């Protein structure tokens, strides 16, 4: 997020090209979670970076069972399961489309006991998976799964390529 200099009583936050007015009170309210920094473009704008201090966050540990049978356990930060896999070079997760549910190259299987916590696929995701030869009832696209502390201990299996 990016907004104008907080000199007045409100700040303008630029997100995806649209401006939204928010009060300075709100900025103060979120300041525990956000870092205010002067904008690098020198236009008098500042940047709001929302980031939870890492000391407050429990790092979820997630295990990927790779196609060759080997397992890798990695510590999760922010973002999606696909991004986590790509950052850690998990074999078999390609994420070609960058995480917009269009390519199915981040297909994983979720163990039954984790399905509730991971959540179901949206209709669009289900529709993309429906055409995958390796789809099962436990299939998910890892680009559509946000990593959180609640997923600590999750073991996912990388689906074979078509």
């Amino acid at each position, binding site marked *: 997020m990016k907004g104008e200099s907080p000199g007045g009583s409100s700040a303008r936050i630029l997100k*995806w*090209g649209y401006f939204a007015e928010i009060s300075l009170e709100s900025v103060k309210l979120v300041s525990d979670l956000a870092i205010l920094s002067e904008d690098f473009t020198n236009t008098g704008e500042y940047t709001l970076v929302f980031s939870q201090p890492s000391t407050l966050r429990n790092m979820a540990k997630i295990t990927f069972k790779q196609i060759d049978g080997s397992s890798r356990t990695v510590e999760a930060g922010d973002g999606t399961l696909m991004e986590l896999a790509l950052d850690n070079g998990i074999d078999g997760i390609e994420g*070609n489309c960058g*995480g917009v*549910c269009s*390519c199915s190259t981040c297909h994983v299987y979720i163990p039954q006991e984790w399905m509730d916590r991971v959540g179901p696929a949206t209709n669009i995701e289900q*529709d993309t998976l429906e*055409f995958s030869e390796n789809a099962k009832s436990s299939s998910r696209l890892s680009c559509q799964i946000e990593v959180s502390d609640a997923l600590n201990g999750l073991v996912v299996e990388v689906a074979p390529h078509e």
Partner: protein
Amino acid sequence: MTHVPDPFKEAREKGPVLNAEIQGKTIPMILGLRDVRKAAKDWETYSSDAPRRVPIPSEEDVRSVRQYPLEVDPPDHKAYRKLVEPFFNRPKLPEVQEQIDTLISRLLTAALEKDEVEIVREFAIPLQSHALTYLLNVDEKEAELWISWGIHVFKEGDGEQKGSFMENYCREMFKKAETHPGDDFFSALNQAKFKDRKLTMEERLGYANIAFAGGRDTIINTIENIIAYFAENPKALDCMNAHPEAIHPAAEEFFRFYMPLTHIGRVCPHNTNLHGTEVEAGERISLCWAAANRDPEFFKDPDEVQLDRKPNPHVSFGFGAHNCLGAHHARVIMRSLIRQLSQNVSKIQIREEVDLIETEADFSRKVGYELLRVSFTPR
């Protein structure tokens, strides 16, 4: 105007298929995303085993060879595709990505030094041609000749003459690679084996044909459309600059919205009933990627460019076994282009534009530009 209306909107609301008159034949076009994906997977009903007839309009006049692996069905298709996959995966290599970054930086620096630049001829075509040398792993000097082939090898100017010139050029390249083998595309195909036999010259020419014709106008048009979009939406440039993490979804949205390849054909080997339309054995149907990409069931406000659109299950790289081999290449180029434009350019002004319109009997669509003269303001 960067706004590209959807010529299939009305037809899609009426039903799943538009019967279009193309080259004197009725070709039923499948319009909805779910139906297009389903048909793209069903190769037994909708076959690609149709030399020179998979593209619509068909290319029987402009090339003599079957394109590989596009115009082959499974299971042989897989073995054919495997032979060239290492080249089409090259854009995943950091060193190839660096080459593409350097190329775009060079073109952009030159454009920034001028008052005006004509994007089609001075930017998009050179960019596509040079980048292809990295993919095929051939001498970058070869790009100079390819640049002279224009936006589309077959459609622009005398397609028949240009098509046969390109075939002869490829034949020469295969011969040269016989005497001086290297790590390039032509040498690899000379040595490649399909089911324990060497490829015939016809097959090798078929691979080269699509390598040159397939990812050409599509990449060129997409580059033009992205630059024109940023000219009309300067805030989007600032936004990409401030949020580099937004570049990937933005690239996918450009691929969805500006899909330059309207559709592709399949042949029905048997009499087929396509949502109520009877298709006789041997006749063609169309998988209309452009219409599927605007399907309101899957894309909210489909006629708007939403750079943060997620999910975005577009079919701009096709779907199923034949999904675009050049997709990695296209993605690396467009992501680098968006990043470098946003970092180095604060404003783009369009000075002169001539739209490139594709017209068939039943629809017309803007796919890109014949001419796009712009001025870049450095950031």
